[in-house]
């Protein structure tokens, strides 16, 4: 092979680059975080019910929060009626964090895992109001 050394080095470099996530993770099988629902407020609930279904919230909570924010700030609309007929206040601090008072275990663990950097906490301090 003419300049075979260089070709093999190039091929090796290519493999190294493509397979680097495998190599980096060899000694590190970080498990997915468990979202903890273990808070006093949730534990105290009889029927554990959120503003929407778990599936919906997993995929779309950011969307809901964005809508709430716009509704409150722009239209002054503060009431949200869930599918079950329950009425909630459209409030991150007042509603969400009331139950999910464990921001680190509930919000951050997942956001960190998926490398999501929401700007919620630029204003909200993550404490229930």
């Amino acid at each position, binding site marked *: *092979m*003419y*300049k*075979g050394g260089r*070709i*093999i080095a*190039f*091929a090796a470099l*290519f*493999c190294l680059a*493509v*397979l680097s*996530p*495998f190599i*980096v*993770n060899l000694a*590190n*099988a*970080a498990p*997915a*975080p468990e*979202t903890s629902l273990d808070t006093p407020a949730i534990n105290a609930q009889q029927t554990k019910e959120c503003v929407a279904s778990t*599936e919906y919230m*997993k*995929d*779309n909570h*950011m*969307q809901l929060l*964005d809508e709430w924010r716009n509704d409150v700030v722009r239209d002054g609309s503060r009431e949200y009626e869930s599918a079950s007929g329950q009425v909630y206040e459209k409030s991150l601090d007042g509603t969400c964090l009331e139950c999910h008072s464990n921001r680190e275990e509930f919000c951050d663990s*997942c956001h*960190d*895992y*998926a*490398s*999501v*950097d929401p*700007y919620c906490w630029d204003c909200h301090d993550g404490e229930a109001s």
Partner: protein
Amino acid sequence: MRIVGPLILTLALAAVAWVGTQYAGLYAVFGIVIPYLALASFVGGFVFRLVKWGKSAVPFRIPTTCGQQKSLPWVKQNKIENPSSFAGVVGRMLLEVLVFRSLFRNTKTEKQGEALGVGSAKWLWLGALVFHWSMLIIVLRHLRFFLEPVPGAIMALEGADAFFQIGLPALYLTDLLIVSALTFLFVRRVVIPRVRYLSLPNDFFPLFLLLGVVIAGIAMRYFFRVDIEGVKEVAMGLVTLHPVVVAGIGPIFYVHLFLASVLIGYFPWSKLMHAGGIVLSPTRNQANDSRAVRHVNPWNPDLPVHTYAEYEDEFKDKLVKAGLPLDAE
């Protein structure tokens, strides 16, 4: 047919993934088996192609010289476009790979009555550059799904890409750019008559495939949201060799993943291998120094020549008559 065929094929592939997961529930096939097969094809095929090319000899030193050669000490050599050293070759190759130097030279020729006019034509260069760089940034961004913890550099890249904080989740600039660039590359292939004329179905297929991957990805991020934690679990499962099936991730994710798998699996067996080929291109990766250093051809054959002795023998009388000296006296 050259265009519609590949389009239908791409759509069919997308449908296969949708149906296969949503209705047939083949999560392990689309989430584990196919990605692994695709990766094996990608890595194995890429190396195979490099080695196969490498096995062909490089008999001569044939760089395309695009600047002044190294000659007299007072003549300024173009050390990049006409390299005479390894460093120069590396410089030339980096310019080709990183900024598409040769494509930047592009011009367009037009017939203006009885004359030819030559104009600048940088659009292809720009489109290609935007596409490739967006692609690179997007691939790097995706490392957030394959690494835990996510390195700061990747997070910073992501932050930069979403700098304008438009929409929620924030719009990635590269998403916008890659769709524009791919659309441009597709449209020029269709609209410029001579480019359409020379295009094959296998030129359209990768474009549709790439667009498919990108559109599915964008749809997933901005419209049909999926459980991103689940996605990362799947990805991490793959790269830690402990693959898992995670319930409840929307089928759009599997469309994205399947099209991406097809793309990388197809890569080494297609024109997409230009990515590896450019580095081996003899007109770009050799120094123009064959007058100073002898290049050896491994198969240089021994061949019969018409020797001077034979020549002299045949033209003896004529040489003498012309007053030229003879060897054989």
